[in-house]
Structure formats: C-alpha cells, structure tokens
C-alpha cells in the first residue's frame, strides 16, 4: 500500500529526487528539494517550446492550452513495486539528482555518482542532475550534458532557472510517454502482475493470457495518456480496456481500468464537482471495490493479495467523499477499511492503512476516532524495534494528546487560557456554578490518559528524547498519582531522574511535575511595618484610609465593596517580603525540591530560592521571600521549581482548579488533603503594588521588651526608644492609643517625639509613657495557674488586654513629580503598633467601704474652739471668715467631734508582698465667693501610713470632716425650692435630673479629693481605685458631709477666770472645779447668709443623762439666762451669750445648746428636711463635755 493516495494519484508522474556528490548540508538539501517540489504541476502550454514532435503523437486530444502534467517528487526515491506493470504511475519515471557544488568539487565524481544513483530505476525515462552553487572553476569547465549547473544568482533568478529546467524535464518525459505508447501498441509487451502465476503456464492459460494482453495493453496506454495529461485519450483507451477485460474475465485489470477511467473523468472535469459526477464516481468506485474483492484468490493469498488494492480504493473513495454531510458514508467506508487490516499481511501496509484512516477521520472532524487510529499506528511503530520507529511513535502519540486532553503545555501554550478565565471568575465570584466546575474537567478519561502518557513515555525513552520522556512522566505523575501504585510512582520518579541525567543542566520544561503548590497566605506586615495610605487632604492623614483596628474584616463594613474588589497589598522597594505557599507530595517517595522561588513575570522582584525536602505523603507550608526592586505592580502567577533536575513553572491557578474539581468529586484526589493538610479557603492572588522606599521605625522599650509586671493601680513610667531603620527620614509622626484599657495611659511625651522630627535614617528618639495599671475585672483576667498550690489563687491580666500605642509616621510627602497627580504621588505612611506589654497582678483588694459617724463630745476649755495643730492649713482656710480662735467649723478630731463622718475602707492583701497604704486628702478651694484665691500649693492632708502584711486585711479610716462648706447657701437648694414651686410643671423632671447630676458631681468631687496611695517595696507605688465603693457608701449621706449646719454652737470658759488657768497642769486641762462659779459662754455661729432669729436653750446633763438644771435634785446652779433666750444672729457671724455655772458635784457633765429657729427660710427648711412649712425647725449643737474636778 502507498500512503497519501487519492483518485488523482494515477495521473501523477513519479520522479525520484536523490542527492549525489559530497554530503549536502541538511538545510541546503531541504532548500533544494523545496525549490524542486514547488513545480508539482507543469502546464502543457509552457512545454511547447521544449516539445518537439518527432512522430505523430498518440495523444490526439491533448489539451495543450488547459492541460498539465502532474509531477510527484519522491525524495530519496522508493523501492520498485511489483505492481509497476499494473499501474504505470507506480513506476519511477524520472530521476532528479541534486548536487551541492561546494561539497563536491569534482564534477566527474558527481557524474559517476549520478549514474550509480540512476541504476535502481530502470524505468526512468529521463534523468537530470542539478548542481547548485558551482565554483568559477567548475563553470569554466567545458559544458557537460549530464549535469546542469545553476550559476550562483539571486533567488528569483534561480527560481526561474529551476522552472525552465523542470519544464524541460517534463517535455522530455512527455516525448518519452509518446514513445512508450507507441511501443506498447506495436510490440507485444507482456504485462504481468504478481497475481498471474509465474511458474507453470498451462496451455489454456497461455491462450487466456494472449486474449487478455490486448486489454491490458489498452489499460497501460490509458495510464500513459493520463500521465501525459490527456484524459480524453485515456478515457477512450480505458473504455476499450474495460470491455476487453470484462470479456476475458480479467477482473483485476478490469478494476484497474475502471479506476483509471474515474481518474480521467476527474482530471477532465477538474475543478467542477456536481452531484451527477459524484454519483458516477461513487458508482464506479463501488464497482472497483467489488472487482478488487472478486480478484482476491484464496490460493495465492499467502503470497500476494489484492486486499491492499481494495483498501486503497476504499480510502480513495473516502477521501473523495470526505465531507461532513457524507460523514456517515465515509465512516462506513473507513470502518470497512479498518476491518480489512486483519487480512493485510505486511505490517507496513497496516501502518499505512491506519495512518490514512486516522488522517481521513481527522479531516472529517472526528478527532477521537483519528486519535484512536493514530494510537494504533503508534503501537505498530512500537512493535518495530528501531529508534526511528520509536520517534515516529512518539510523534504520532503526541498528536493524539489533544484528543485525550493530556497535551503538554509546550505544544499548546494557549491551553490554560480558558482555565485562567475560569480561575479569575471563580476568584471574583467566589461561587461557581457546579455545572461550570464540571465543564473544567471535560473529557477526562483518566484510564486512557494514563495509558497514552505511559506509551509516550516508553516511546520517548526508546526514541532517546529525554525532554519528552520527562514531560510525559511529569504529566503522568502529577495527574494520575492516585491511580499509580507506590512502586509505579517510584518508577516514574526514577525515570524522571534518568531523563534529567541526559538533559543539560538548567533545562526548562513546560509541564510541571511534583510537588503541588498552592498559595497559602500572605503574612500580613508585622504590626511594626503596617503601611497606611496617606490622605494628603487631612491633617490626620491616616484616618479613613485603612482599617483602624487589628481586624482585616469587620462585619460592619459595607459588604458589597469588599467582596468585589480584590484585596490590595502594598510592598515597599528594598524591603523583603514573604509569601507562604503550601507544597504537597502525595507520592510515596522522598521528594527533593532543589530550589523553589516565586515566579514573577513583571520583572521587578528578586526572589530568593529555597530548597525543601518533602517526605512521602506530606504537605509543608514554606515561606518564600524576595525583595521588590522597582515601583509598579507585581504579578506572581506561580512558583519556579527546580525538581527532578528540570526547571518548571507551577501555576497556582492550576492547583486551584484541581482542588475545585476535587471538592466536587470530579478529580481523583485532592493532593493536599491526602497529605493530611487541612482544607484551606481558596486564596486568590491579590493585586500587589510596589511603592518607593518608606521610613521604618523600630521600637524597643528601654530596659527590655518583656512585659512589665504591675499591681493594680500601680503607676510606672515606661521609656520607649524609636529608631528609624529605613532609608528615608521620618517627617511626620503622631501617637495615638488603641486597644483595651486605654485610660491606663496617664501621659505620653508627644512633644518629645515631635521635637525630634525629622528623624534621619538611623536616628533615635526616646520618650516616656506613664502608665497606671488598670483594675482587673473578671472578664479580662485569668487565674494564675502557677499559684494553684496556694490557698487563694490570684488573678492576673489576660494577654492582649494591654493598651496599644499606634505611632503613625510618614516620610516626605512631596515627590519629584508633584505636578501630575497629587493624590497618587503621595507615598503612603506607616503605622507602628507598639503594645505596652503590661501584666497586671491583683494588688490590694478593696473589700468594702463604710461610712461611720463618730460622736465624741468636745471638752469645754477656755481656748476652745481652737485650731487643730495637725491641720494647720484647714485653719488657714477659714481664717478669712473668722479669727483663728473663733473658728467654729474645724474641730480637733482628737479632742472631740460631734457628728464627724469617717470613711472606713477595708482592704485585703492577697499578694505576697507587703503594702503600705497612705491616705491623703487633697483640699482645694471651695468655690465660694468669700474665699479668695490662695497663693500656695495644694494642701494635702496626709494620714499615717497603714501597713498591710501579705494575706492580711486592714482597715483604713478617712475622716471626711474637711469637706464641709463654710456657708450654708441657698444655691445648693435652689433647685429643690424650685421643684417645690413648679411641681406641676413640665420642667420638673428636668430640674430634678439637674439636681441629681449636681449631687453626683459633688460626690465625685469629694471622692476625687481622697487618694489612697500605696507603696510596696522600693519602687512599686500606686493608687487604689476606690471611686465606686466610696460613691456607694457616700450616696446616702452626702448632704450631711458636705453641708454645714445652719448654726454651730460652742461653749467656752469666759476669759475672765484667769486664775483657773494657774491651777497647774492638771487643772489647766480641767479648769473647772466644783463649788466654784464658772463663767461660761455659748457661742452661736450663723452659717447662712441670712439673719436667723431664734430662741436658745442651754441644757446640762450629768453622766446619767439627768437634767442638772431643773428637777428636784439639780446638781448645777446657774446664773444668767439659760432658756428661751431670744437671739438674732447676723449672717456669717457669731454671737456669744454668757452665763455662769456652779457645779455642786464634781464629775462629768454634758453641755448642749439647742435653738428653735423662728421664721425659718426655705433654705433652712430644706436643710432640716422639713416636710411642711409649719413644722418648727430646731437646731441642736453638738454636746460638750465638762469635767468638773474637786471633791464633793
């Protein structure tokens, strides 16, 4: 069988093209052959000048104006066919030798070679030798007939020369054909085929052969007519031949003649194709096929077979009909032809048959059918044991890869274009229709693909093509590892390694092998390096441009915008960046990745390679790093991997698609999951842009970065040192607070930082932050596990509850190209988030607060009331109101006080250190018009320190006496009185609320003055937060604490009794003796701004509580008025009322003054909490002790 047959094949003249002389460079030979091959059709009209009619031409109807000779150049020639007599076009009718003169200087040798080359072709009717690029010497030699020298010239000229030579050749062939025809007509040439039995020609057969000879001769003449381009003549001869063959029963020749007639028909009607012609051709060809089948003779089937002719005819017809409309008919023909393959003896014939069938199916658009037969061809090739057959097999198999969807990326670079689309759409939409997922894996016949790849691998190993072998093994391993046994996997790995050994170092392959690589994540900038987009319009440029919190995603941000836009990542020129990728080795051998690095197509990134070793069935997350080198966008589609000796590019997208398929059950296995790696959300590659260098602040806490351990309420300074580690100066910097417990930062040295700007590269600045440890609450603390052994587990603060310092800083805001887009030209700023690492330990624990009132009566003395010594300042506070001695408000707490309030704080110390508690009360000026602005510093009253040992508790008393306002003012009650008046008004609630607020304010004011400070050890000190507790304790009785009584009463011994003071030390303390008349005074001070009228009563009681003035057994005699004394006290002044007492019995007495206020004002009523206006208002002074000495 012959390849590439068609119906017109019968009209082509076969010319062998051979190379002679010295070896011709392959490129040259190809060039020459192509130049010759271009002249496959020579017009008869062009031959006229070369043609000379020596005798009358047998081709009577030769179409000189429209006809043509068809030449077919067979490079290298072909062996003679046994069927040459049967079909003349199978003969080599001419020999064309090609010679490259520079390679063969001696033309004689060339001529010799040429003669030798012509010897195998006895039927050659014409011989030519074309010599190209002859040297000058060769040109100068005398002209030879056997060699045509092509003088060196330009391409066009050479083309023309070649055309002329080919036309000359064709003309001489035409003349030879004429001779042949005449010879065949006249002489009785015996035309034989292998079908005719050679040996014993019986007499009967000889007669038969004689009869047949005429028909066969007619057929041969027809063949020559066809070759000579005269279809009409051919048709005439063929008709005769058919008649004769039919008569003689020469079936085989009958079929041949019929075939020739169809060819003549087609040549005659060249170009035009109408249904009638087609029907005719079809009809005749089916007859041809039938005849060939009939010619099949069983007994010589072993030796020769006509099957090949039958199949060839079928293929010719199929080729003629090969159109999609007639697909069914063609398929039938081809399937019939394929069935015939079994009866073909020669393997080569079968090969050709399958090649032709595959080609025809391919033309029909049946790619899978074509692939199937191609694979059959490849298998036939593989049965031959030669390297060239293996190469052919490999090439044929490679052609089928498209149909089986296992093509190499190299052969089809556009292969992943649709995948890319799908990938991006998936990345954008996040949701993909399951149907379109399915379509990603269209036509995946895994078993077929595996077989095919294995065959490619085998053939390319045999063909000695290591790169193809590597590629096939890589595809096989990567796509089908779950279907391959561990031994098979190792075998593939070793074949990869073997192939790589034969490849030069650094070979690249388009098909990735292992490992599977997917993008894991982008490590966020460490909080020290956050990049913040700068808003040049705002002073606080960092606001509104970046997420403010530590959260990347906030559920409150607008959903639509964040989903659609990919996240953006900014990298900085010159600063190393990192990307996490996950590698998986799902196979059963150790995978050594010699180097892996990010593949960047944008060319502005230096990637650093790393080498990884992946044990069997493992996945690993590795960190790939690099440095951006230029400003601009960066795209990272995948990784470059150097593994198994070859460099490949692994795209993230491919693996993403694979994982998608695995998730839907369309792909065999998810390589990451089978390696035990968890399911990961598909990470789409963000847009990465590179910005010019930025400053970079590095911080450290002076004295170590470890966390500071503080007790609750402890105050500590933390010094923070910032260094500019970048290459650009810091020009703007701003500190803000964020995170939890922000109020624990008392002060920050902003100015220290701002004064250090601009901070040059390498510059350093240190500033102080004052911290006060916050109170631990149950929510943000945890039990210290290390102290479980002790009875009481103490609590420490949880991690992450410390406040954060966010330092926003930026380099120069102006760029050189300022003129253009201002917004874009502003380089971003940065944020340094610096957690103030504080570990708060539970310190002194506040148990409870109580308000105690102390009622110790004062002693009456001559100098009373006098200022207390310990609080000098408090006296001074009042000395503008009264003289020192006359101060009634301040009472020495150690000598006595009536109605003094004490705040008792109970504290316990659960820690293992000793605390010393120090209560101080800060006094500031009451906002009173009567009090001038003081010119001295705040007056703190410090009480004695209280020491609380570890795991003990203690109580601290805080006297609250110093908070009384000096004046009982209507303003305090203004609201109340208003309330009374406008009880029905709408304003009621408002004013009430105001009053409450005012009350709270005054309480807060009071509390803020009390500071409970503690100290522990040498350098821990702090303040106890008692606000809430005291507030609760004070809420009820704040009025009593803050407001003075409208009237204060005091008793003293009148100054006249000087002699009493001379009684000595003891008597000076107790100056009152029994049986003596004692002059006393009662002092009444009006604390209001209005004059108060009252009736005063003075009572004296003994220890038993009996009234001593009245009754049957009065023990005290008196002089002066003691009851119902009507007095009028002007505002803020005091009045003394004198009287004398005579004590009959020594002992302790209590003097007390009381007054009934007449015409009480609203203020007084409110103070007394009177319910009605008619109620009498009484005012009672605190009791005073009188110790009367002497003997009864």
């Amino acid at each position, binding site marked *: 069988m012959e390849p590439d047959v068609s119906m017109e094949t019968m009209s082509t003249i076969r010319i062998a093209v051979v190379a002679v002389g010295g070896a011709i460079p392959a490129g040259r030979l190809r060039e020459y052959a192509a130049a010759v091959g271009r002249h496959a059709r020579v017009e008869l009209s062009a031959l006229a000048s070369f043609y000379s009619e020596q005798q009358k031409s047998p081709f009577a109807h030769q179409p000189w104006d429209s006809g043509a000779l068809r030449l077919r150049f067979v490079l290298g020639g072909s062996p003679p066919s046994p069927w040459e007599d049967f079909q003349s076009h199978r003969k080599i009718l001419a020999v064309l030798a090609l010679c490259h003169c520079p390679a063969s200087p001696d033309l004689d040798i060339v001529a010799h070679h040429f003669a030798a080359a012509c010897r195998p072709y006895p039927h050659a009717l014409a011989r030519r030798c074309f010599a190209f690029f002859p040297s000058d010497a060769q040109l100068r030699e005398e002209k030879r007939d056997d060699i045509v020298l092509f003088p060196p010239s330009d391409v066009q000229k050479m083309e023309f020369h070649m055309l002329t030579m080919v036309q000359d050749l064709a003309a001489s062939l035409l003349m030879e054909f004429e001779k042949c025809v005449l010879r065949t007509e006249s002489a009785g040439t015996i035309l034989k085929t292998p079908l005719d039995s050679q040996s014993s020609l019986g007499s009967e057969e000889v007669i038969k052969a004689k009869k047949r000879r005429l028909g066969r001769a007619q057929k041969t003449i027809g063949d020559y007519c066809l070759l000579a381009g005269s279809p009409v003549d051919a048709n005439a001869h063929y008709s005769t031949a058919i008649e004769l063959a039919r008569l003689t029963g020469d079936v085989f020749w009958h079929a041949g003649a019929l075939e020739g007639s169809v060819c003549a028909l087609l040549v005659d009607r060249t170009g035009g194709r109408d249904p009638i012609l087609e029907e005719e051709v079809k009809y005749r060809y089916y007859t041809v096929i039938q005849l060939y089948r009939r010619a099949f003779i069983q007994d010589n089937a072993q030796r020769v077979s006509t099957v090949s002719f039958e199949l060839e005819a079928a293929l010719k017809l199929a080729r003629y009909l090969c159109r999609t409309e007639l*697909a*069914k008919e063609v*398929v039938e023909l081809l*399937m019939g032809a*394929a*069935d015939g393959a*079994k009866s073909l003896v020669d393997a080569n014939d079968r090969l050709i048959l399958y090649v032709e069938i595959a080609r025809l*199916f391919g033309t029909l*658009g*049946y*790619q*899978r*059918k074509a*692939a*199937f*037969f191609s*694979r059959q061809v490849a298998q036939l090739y593989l049965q031959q044991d030669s390297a060239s057959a293996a190469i052919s097999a490999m090439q044929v198999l490679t052609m089928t890869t498209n149909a*089986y969807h296992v093509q190499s990326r190299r052969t089809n670079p556009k292969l992943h274009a649709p995948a890319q689309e799908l990938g991006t759409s998936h990345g954008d939409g996040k949701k993909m229709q*399951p*149907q379109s997922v*399915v*379509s990603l*894996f*269209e*036509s*995946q*016949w895994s*078993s*077929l693909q595996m*077989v095919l790849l294995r065959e490619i691998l085998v053939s390319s190993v045999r063909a000695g093509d290591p790169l193809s072998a590597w590629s096939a093994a890589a595809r096989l391993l990567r796509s089908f590892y779950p279907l391959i046994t561990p031994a098979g996997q190792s075998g593939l790995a070793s074949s990869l390694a073997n192939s790589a050994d034969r490849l030069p170092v650094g070979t690249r392959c388009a098909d990735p092998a292992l490992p599977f690589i997917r993008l894991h994540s982008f490590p966020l900038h460490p909080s020290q390096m956050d990049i913040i987009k700068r808003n040049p319009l705002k002073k606080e440029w960092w606001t509104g441009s970046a997420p403010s919190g530590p959260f990347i995603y906030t559920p409150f941000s607008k959903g639509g915008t964040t989903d659609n836009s990919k996240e953006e990542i900014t990298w900085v020129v010159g600063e190393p960046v990192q990307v996490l990728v996950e590698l998986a080795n799902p196979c059963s051998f150790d995978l050594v990745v010699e180097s892996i690095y990010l593949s960047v197509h944008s060319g502005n990134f230096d990637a650093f390679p790393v080498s990884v070793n992946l044990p069997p069935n493992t996945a690993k997350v590795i960190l790939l790093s690099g440095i951006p080198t230029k400003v601009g966008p960066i795209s990272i589609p995948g990784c470059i991997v150097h593994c198994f000796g070859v460099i490949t590019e692994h795209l993230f997208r491919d693996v993403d698609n694979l994982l998608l398929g695995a998730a*839907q*059950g*369309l792909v065999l296995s998810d390589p990451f999951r089978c390696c035990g790696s968890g399911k990961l959300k598909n990470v789409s590659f963000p847009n990465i842009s590179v910005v010019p260098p930025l400053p970079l602040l590095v911080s450290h806490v002076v004295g170590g970065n470890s966390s500071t351990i503080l007790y609750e309420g402890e105050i500590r300074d933390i010094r923070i040192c910032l260094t500019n580690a970048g290459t650009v100066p810091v020009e703007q910097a701003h500190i803000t607070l964020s995170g939890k417990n922000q109020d624990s930062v008392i002060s920050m040295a902003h100015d220290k930082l701002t004064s250090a700007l601009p901070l040059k590269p390498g510059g350093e600045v240190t500033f102080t932050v004052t911290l006060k440890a916050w109170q631990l609450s149950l929510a943000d603390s945890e039990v210290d596990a290390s102290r479980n052994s002790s009875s009481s587990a103490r609590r420490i603060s949880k991690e992450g509850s410390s406040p954060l310092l966010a330092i926003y800083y930026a380099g120069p805001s102006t760029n050189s190209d300022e003129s253009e887009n201002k917004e874009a030209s502003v380089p971003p700023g940065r944020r340094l988030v610096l957690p103030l690492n504080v570990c708060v330990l539970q310190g002194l624990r506040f148990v409870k607060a109580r308000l105690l009132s102390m009622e110790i009566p004062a002693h009456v003395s001559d100098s009373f009331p006098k200022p207390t010594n310990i609080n000098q300042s408090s006296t001074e506070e009042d000395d503008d109101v009264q003289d020192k001695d006359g101060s009634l408000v301040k009472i020495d707490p150690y000598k006595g006080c009536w109605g003094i309030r004490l705040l008792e704080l109970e504290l316990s110390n659960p820690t293992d250190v000793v605390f010393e508690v120090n209560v101080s009360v800060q006094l500031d000026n009451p906002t009173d018009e009567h009090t001038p602005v003081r010119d001295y510093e705040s007056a703190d009253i410090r009480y004695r320190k209280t020491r609380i040992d570890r795991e003990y508790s203690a109580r601290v008393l805080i006297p609250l006496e110093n908070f009384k306002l000096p004046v009982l003012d209507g303003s305090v009650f203004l609201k109340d009185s208003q309330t009374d008046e406008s009880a029905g008004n709408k304003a009621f609630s408002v004013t009430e609320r105001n009053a409450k607020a005012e009350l709270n304010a005054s309480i807060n004011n009071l509390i803020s003055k009390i500071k409970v400070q503690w100290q522990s050890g040498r350098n821990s000190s702090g303040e106890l937060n008692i606000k809430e507790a005291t507030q609760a304790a004070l809420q009820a009785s704040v009025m009593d604490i803050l407001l003075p009584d409208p009237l204060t009463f005091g008793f003293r011994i009148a100054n006249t009794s000087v002699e009493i003071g001379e009684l000595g030390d003891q008597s000076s303390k107790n100056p009152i003796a029994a049986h003596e008349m004692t002059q006393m005074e009662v002092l009444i001070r009006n604390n209001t701004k209005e004059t108060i009228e009252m009736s005063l009563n003075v009572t004296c009681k003994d220890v038993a509580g009996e009234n001593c003035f009245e009754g049957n057994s009065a023990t005290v005699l008196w002089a002066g008025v003691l009851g119902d004394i009507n007095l009028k006290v002007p505002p803020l002044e005091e009045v003394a009322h004198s009287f004398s007492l005579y004590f009959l019995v020594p002992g302790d007495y209590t003097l007390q003054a009381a007054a009934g206020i007449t015409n009480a004002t609203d203020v007084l009523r409110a103070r007394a909490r009177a319910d009605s206006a008619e109620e009498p208002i009484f005012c009672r002074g605190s009791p005073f002790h009188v110790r009367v000495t002497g003997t009864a």
Partner: protein
Amino acid sequence: MASTACFVIVSRNDIPIYEAEVGSVLKKEEAAHLHQFILHAALDIVQDLAWTTSAMFLKSVDRFNDLVVSVYVTAGHTRLMLLHDSRNEDGIKSFFQDVHELYLKILLNPLYLPGSRITSSHFDTKVRALARKYL
C-alpha cells in the same frame, strides 16, 4: 452472556462517570484499555448520530475488529455505551433501558452532582446483575 463486554456511562461533558467490565471472560488490563479507547473513539460517531434519530437506542454505531459499540442516549445527552461481541440486540436494548432507570434514580439523589462520577456500589451491583441477565 457475552464473552466480552465493557459498559461505560459518559456524561454530557464527555467524562466517563461509570465504567464496568461486564464480560464473562476475564480480560487483561491491556484489553480493558483497548475497550475504553474504542468506546472513547465511538463518541465522535455518536455525537453525529444522536441528532439524526428520535430513538434513544442507537443500536450499534461503531465497531473495531470484532467488537461492536452499542449506544443509548438519554434525554440529558448522557450516553450509555456498551462494547460487546455478541449480536443480541434485544437483550442490549433491555439492558440499556433498565440501566437508564437506575441512572435516573441516581440523578434523583439530591447529593449527586450531575456529571460527576457514580460511586454508588448499589448501582454497580445492579448494573452487573442486569448485565448477567440480558447480555
């Protein structure tokens, strides 16, 4: 029962979603591959043929050597393909119809994504039983 039979269900996306060697003769792996190659190649012909007739059973559409490919195309263009060497057309038709019913049941499973591989062992058992019955 036929000595050689290979049954494949091909989804509309040309993915084999079910494969079974249902012949009585145990074949070598190489032969099984050849069966699949033949079935894969026959898809080209089915593709054209399916639109020329309203019948679901396309009878034998292709052959290679002595192996014949019979095809049944469902309304959803899922193709049930049988490679066989017997000529029992009626049995094949009944086989296809019953398998089609089984396939519909699979499709009705809300957890089954149309076009993905059929992994139900129940289905496999039933198909093999049908093959023994009809082929």
